[in-house]
């Protein structure tokens, strides 16, 4: 009996480990904000199907998790608030004083301070997510939209669509200390993993500027050229960088393509066809997959990063805007 048991034990372990290994790497959940429907779509990334659609505030756009991914912050732009959703039961448990028309925001690494771009007021509002207090309001350029906080928490960056600038806010003093002029209508700003480089997309300019954080100067400017697509339609919006520093993905809006860029040489490697007016993106936890929100076609495209191919497009609500993936 002892022999049988000792034989079965490793066998059972092998079967169990086999079962664990065979579990899809992307058994995760994606949250997608649908701007026109005032809803969030929840996608099971194992089955690649929408499992639920939740009502939220008016015109939800930017969405972000807290550090342990137990809460989701939602910019309900037309409700002029940031809603807090408890991810255990998907209920709204609170609302933060965001200032008017919040569109994008970024959470400080302290998991407490939320930096919100108020498009209509030319302000960045800093809110304490624990006390629900407004800690500061910083004047920036006209129509701020893109928002990012550096991995070391030192800088909060905002892009203003009309002033065409990146605004550097010191998170210690909450003062605007510098501006970097970029191309027309900067929509999004993204730090690399090390926090020494920042990528800024310019929608009308059709470019992505790569900025050195120390000097706050542009070191490289990327342009995009897709065969058969008029240059006017190439309007970069969302940018995502892989943690290993290999790739940058740039959503090219009405060009309906994602540009795959070598993040070391800045060479455009490929253009991947997705749905209409591709806007923002997010990686799954092991960064083997990238999801894109396609506003006009009302779907989310799934990119397999290892194969660098679009493998599926999943119908969600009207005008999907932001996407976040929870392991």
């Amino acid at each position, binding site marked *: 009996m002892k022999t049988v048991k000792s034989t079965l034990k490793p066998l059972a372990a092998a079967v169990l480990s086999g079962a664990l290994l065979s579990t899809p790497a992307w058994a995760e959940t994606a949250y997608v904000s649908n701007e026109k429907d005032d809803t969030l779509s929840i996608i099971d990334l194992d089955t690649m199907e929408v499992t639920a659609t939740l009502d939220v505030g008016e015109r939800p756009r930017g969405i972000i998790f807290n550090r342990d991914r137990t809460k989701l912050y939602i910019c309900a732009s037309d409700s002029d608030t940031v809603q807090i959703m408890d991810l255990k039961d998907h209920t709204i448990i609170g609302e933060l004083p965001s200032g008017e028309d919040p569109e994008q925001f970024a959470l400080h690494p302290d998991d407490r301070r939320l930096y919100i771009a108020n498009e209509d007021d030319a302000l960045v509002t800093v809110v304490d997510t624990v006390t629900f207090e407004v800690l500061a309001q910083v004047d920036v350029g006209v129509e701020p939209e893109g928002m990012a906080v550096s991995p070391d928490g030192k800088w909060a960056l905002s892009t203003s669509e009309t002033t065409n600038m990146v605004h550097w806010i010191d998170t210690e003093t909450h003062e605007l200390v510098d501006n970097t002029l970029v191309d027309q209508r900067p929509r999004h700003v993204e730090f690399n993993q090390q926090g020494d480089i920042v990528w800024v997309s310019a929608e009308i300019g059709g470019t992505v500027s790569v900025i050195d954080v120390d000097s706050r100067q542009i070191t490289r400017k990327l342009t995009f050229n897709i*065969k*058969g697509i008029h240059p006017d339609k190439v309007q970069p919006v969302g940018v995502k960088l892989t943690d290993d520093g290999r790739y940058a993905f740039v959503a090219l809006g009405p060009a*309906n393509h994602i540009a795959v860029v070598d993040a070391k040489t800045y060479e455009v490697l490929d253009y991947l*066809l997705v749905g209409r007016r591709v806007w923002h993106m997010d990686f799954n936890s092991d960064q083997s997959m990238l999801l894109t929100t396609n506003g006009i076609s009302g779907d989310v*495209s799934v990119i397999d990063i290892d194969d660098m191919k*679009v493998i599926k*497009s999943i119908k969600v609500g009207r005008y999907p805007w932001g996407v976040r993936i929870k392991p």
Partner: protein
Amino acid sequence: MTFRDLLICFNGLLQRELLRFIHQRSRFFSALVRPLLWLVVFASGFRAALGIAIIEPYETYITYEVYIVPGLCAMIILFNGMQSSLSMVYDREMGSMRVLLISPMPRPFLLLAKLLATSLVSLLQVYGFLLIAWCWGVEAPLWGYLTALPAFLMVAMMLSAIGLFISAKIKQLENFAGVMNFVIFPMFFLSSALYPLWKMREANEWLYWVCAWNPFTHGVELIRFALYQQWHSEALIIVCLVTLVASVLAVTGFQPQQGMGKRSR
């Protein structure tokens, strides 16, 4: 007559088709150049023709090149099947058909074996084209190349049977060339090979119904779905039925003395 005898006979026919295929290199290259011109030149110019829509069996948005590849595979099979039927008219006029029919094997077997041999030769051309398309960046799922094999074969059988039926009705080679124009081009253009049927419907409801009734459309769709590892029962049934009906009509209607009789007079 044993199964071995039948196999020897089929082997002989297959080898003849293969030899003809190998010796007529220009035929092989023209069979490849035609779809490649469509893929490289036409598809590049018509990138926007497809519009933005996800259609089955595709899971996401595709470029026009990706869309037309199954149709171009079917085009290769169509041309090859018809060309092979043309060769039967030629054989009949030249008298070599008599040599084939001297064989003690039943005539239906000889004709169906010829259909199968022609179909197998078509497969070589199709896979040659798919390889070049793959190098051009149009890739199907890897297993799809295998799952599409029976679909290619069935469509090739269907088109060869149709070709054989038509050739059975042709008295002279000159007439056949005319029929080619009236069969191949309408069959190809009035199908889902170049444009999805919903797009055709947007333009003209009548044209849509003509396309929907065209057996070639179902052949294209059977290939398209099989290439993406999906099942299309409706297309499968229609392809099988048309193959059966065309084969029966061709075999029963085949008169080897046509043409030859005229020569002997």
